[in-house]
């Protein structure tokens, strides 16, 4: 049984800016639960002009009480209140020539309990104009993007680049949730019943606990809880990207970095970055 979520969206920003914002999306006021982000591998292929990046994020999360009730805490490694940390592995490939960025994020731990794979594909829309005009607009667009993405650029002039060219980026998001809980134990049990020597001592408690639920029902429930959290966290992820893109439009890359610095300070001091909203620390 697999739960699936998908959506499409359009950002009112040019494709290169969106890819940069993706790399710079943490921290932002909607992601105060993200503790760290590290690049663990990166490869640039000069022939295809593609860039592959693997990053590791550490997030603070709170397990829903529904999950802590379903599974023994010893299995989840969380505190009594459900506070825990989780590693997320993110892979992305950017093809700037063809105008797409393909990203995938997955949890590294507890994948047996619930594996969550989030995929986002960003695309530069194919312009609906004749080729000769396209070439001209492409050159003009590139010049504007230059200003927009100027490393040392100040706010002035940068804004014009985005507002006037009217470029957009399409994004397709999907989340797949899959619980395998109980499956390894079931396999072990089968192996044991076939007469092979398996570790008897660790079985009685787990089997008893699972039997009370039924493996399929337990998996369904865990996937359902995961989906509920996904639905709740998606708007925050979108808002976070929008904040980063807005900062880029206002102040270029310097503006984004300055915003990140302030967010990071606020997070360290435990201040809520969304003045009117509830604390986001426990959001996915």
């Amino acid at each position, binding site marked *: 049984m697999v739960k699936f979520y998908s959506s499409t969206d359009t950002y009112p920003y040019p494709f290169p800016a969106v890819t940069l914002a993706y790399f710079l999306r943490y921290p932002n006021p909607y992601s105060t639960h993200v503790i760290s982000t590290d690049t663990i591998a990166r490869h640039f292929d000069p022939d295809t002009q593609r860039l592959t990046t693997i990053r590791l994020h550490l997030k603070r999360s709170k397990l829903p009480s529904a999950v802590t009730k379903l599974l023994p805490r010893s299995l989840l490694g969380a505190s009594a209140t459900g506070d825990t940390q989780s590693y997320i592995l993110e892979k992305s490939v950017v093809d700037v020539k063809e105008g797409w960025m393909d990203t995938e994020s997955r949890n590294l731990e507890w994948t047996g309990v619930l594996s969550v794979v989030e995929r986002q594909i960003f695309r530069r829309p194919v312009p609906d104009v004749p080729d000769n005009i396209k070439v001209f607009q492409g050159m003009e667009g590139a010049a504007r993007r230059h200003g927009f993405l100027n*490393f040392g650029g100040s706010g002035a002039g940068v804004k014009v680049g985005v507002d006037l060219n009217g470029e957009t980026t399409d994004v397709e998001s999907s989340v797949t949730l899959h619980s395998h809980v109980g499956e390894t134990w079931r396999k072990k049990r089968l192996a044991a019943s076939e007469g092979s020597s398996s570790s008897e001592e660790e079985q009685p408690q787990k089997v008893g606990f699972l039997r009370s639920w039924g493996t399929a029902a337990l998996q369904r429930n865990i996937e359902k809880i995961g989906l509920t959290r996904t639905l709740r966290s998606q708007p925050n992820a979108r808002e976070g990207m929008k904040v980063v893109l807005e900062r880029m439009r206002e102040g270029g890359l310097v503006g984004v970095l300055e915003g990140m610095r302030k967010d990071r300070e606020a997070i360290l001091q435990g201040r809520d970055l969304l003045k009117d909203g509830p604390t986001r620390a426990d959001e996915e």
Partner: protein
Amino acid sequence: MSASLAPECNQVKERYDNCFLKWYSEKFLRGAATTDECDPLFKQYEKCLSKVLNDRGIDKMVKEAREDNRENDAEHLKPKR
């Protein structure tokens, strides 16, 4: 900039991140990149981080996750057209 998992790597991470962002926005996004110019800085950052990843057993988890998805990765990376 985002923080590193290992506070002792923050400085070298920031140096690398700054280099990458400059290269990415000024070269890569304009289709003008010929090599990854920040690779020497990445190697320093990687060296610092690998110790922590190893100590906490994260490198093993990452390796397993990537092996599990090797087929998926091949699909992911193959040319689209």
